[in-house]
């Protein structure tokens, strides 16, 4: 780890005032400290935000929730209101990391974790995300875990979060605050596709701090499923994951949400697929057609063609399980 300075401000405006392109906010530190040990990230100063409060889950008048950015992943997954109203989110969080890491990791930090692409972590390799313009060895190298959707010549990395896949499906809104004031960002717009600037994972400015995540009133309590496929039964990143949520009227789909993890630089949500599901009967054919549509532009790399079939089957399975209310 390179030397750095450390501050622990007592309020948000003080924290934001300290922030610039060379600093990093720290809360749980589960990813950032690791990246600093590997010299992948070398901040001049860490701004410890754990003294800012931001650790409440508040009910909103419409039945939604506002989750403080510093609520731990464990506390969020096991919060009674999350278990009751957003069980999909609870399932997704518990599918990720380990109990120790979930005790440390924060809600806001989960959004900001970096890709686990091997080349990003290996400071002996080029990487456009770590050193813009240096190249992408993953494109022609070991790319079994990499993206099949929305990648670019510059970067084929995936976003590693499970929680974010559920938040995308649940239409969450991210509240951020910076020197220019506060703003709200729809979850679908928060993370970026790599295009020609893979060094930017999301649209936050250097001085902007995630303060809360807002969930709209619950609509998918009865029919949902988070399905995670990985190389071992627990404590591994997703090869493919699917957050599926349905609103049914008898055997007909009234509304659908579908988000995928492990396949792209951001939680992958395709509103055309969701629109196509609405009004259709609950059936294998409906779900299979949705998977075909979602994966229509999939572009596998040398070693991850299996992800296309895997994602297809995972989408069908997750939607089927959601329709029957099964969450086993």
């Amino acid at each position, binding site marked *: 780890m390179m030397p750095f*300075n450390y501050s622990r401000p007592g309020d948000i405006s003080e924290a934001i005032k300290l922030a610039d392109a060379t600093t990093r906010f*720290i809360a749980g530190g589960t990813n950032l400290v690791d990246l600093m*040990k590997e010299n992948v990230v070398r901040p001049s100063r*860490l701004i410890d935000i754990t003294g800012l409060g931001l650790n409440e889950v508040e009910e909103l008048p419409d039945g939604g929730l506002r989750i403080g950015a510093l609520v731990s992943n464990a506390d969020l997954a096991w919060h009674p209101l999350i278990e009751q109203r957003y069980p999909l989110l609870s399932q997704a969080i518990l599918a990720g990391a380990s*109990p120790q*890491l979930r005790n440390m990791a924060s809600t806001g930090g989960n959004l900001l974790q970096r890709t686990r692409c091997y080349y990003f972590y290996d400071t002996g390799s080029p990487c456009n995300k770590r050193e813009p313009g240096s190249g992408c060895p993953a494109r022609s190298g070991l790319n079994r875990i990499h993206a099949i959707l929305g990648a670019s010549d510059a970067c084929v990395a995936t976003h590693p979060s499970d929680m974010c896949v559920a938040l995308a499906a649940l239409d969450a809104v991210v509240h951020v605050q910076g020197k220019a004031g506060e703003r709200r960002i729809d979850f679908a717009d928060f993370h970026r596709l790599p295009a020609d600037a893979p060094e930017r994972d999301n649209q936050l400015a250097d001085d902007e701090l995630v303060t809360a995540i807002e969930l709209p009133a619950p609509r998918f309590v009865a029919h949902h499923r988070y399905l995670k496929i990985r190389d071992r039964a627990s404590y591994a990143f997703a090869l493919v994951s699917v957050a599926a949520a349905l609103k049914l009227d008898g055997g007909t789909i009234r509304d659908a949400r579908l988000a995928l993890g492990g396949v792209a630089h951001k939680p992958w949500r395709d509103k055309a697929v969701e629109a196509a599901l609405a009004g259709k009967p609950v059936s294998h054919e409906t779900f299979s057609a949705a998977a075909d549509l979602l994966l229509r532009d999939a572009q596998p790399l040398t070693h991850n063609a299996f992800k296309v079939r895997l994602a297809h089957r995972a989408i069908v399975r997750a939607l089927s399980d959601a329709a029957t209310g099964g969450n086993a």
Partner: protein
Amino acid sequence: MSPSPSSGVELHSIRFTVNGAQRTLDIPPWLTLLDLLRDEFDMTGTKKGCDHGQCGACTVLRDGKRINACLTLAVMCDGANLTTVEGLATDDELHPMQRAFIKHDAFQCGYCTPGQICSAVGLAREGRANNRDDIKELMSGNLCRCGAYSNIIAAVEEALPHSGGDLGQGGAQS
């Protein structure tokens, strides 16, 4: 490796409780809790395995919750109440989880054991494990390269109902 503190970065004064004893010291911000425990306090029960949060050998309890000490900056533990494996037993009695690990021969080389035991005590305090499958899933953050898993699960299962309360010598109380 930690950088040398001669680089002009200020030290930070922190104060916390480890196994019931108050500690105050000045540290550089890059010192991890794991290195602090082992190198500064000579409390080597907490082990360094991967040093990247993947193996769980460094698991300790902060305010009663299990965490990876290797990914925790000591400077961020100011005011915390820490319990390590050295703090689980009382003067003349092992913690129920320690007794169960011995009874079930839940280790071979023993290197992962302090982390396994601290993690299992944290698991008991969470109160979320209702069967063996839950125990397996909720102990997944602790690797055992000897492969003593089946005995570890048996030990945790037996000790679970007796392990959710006090944490030994004045550690975090339930």
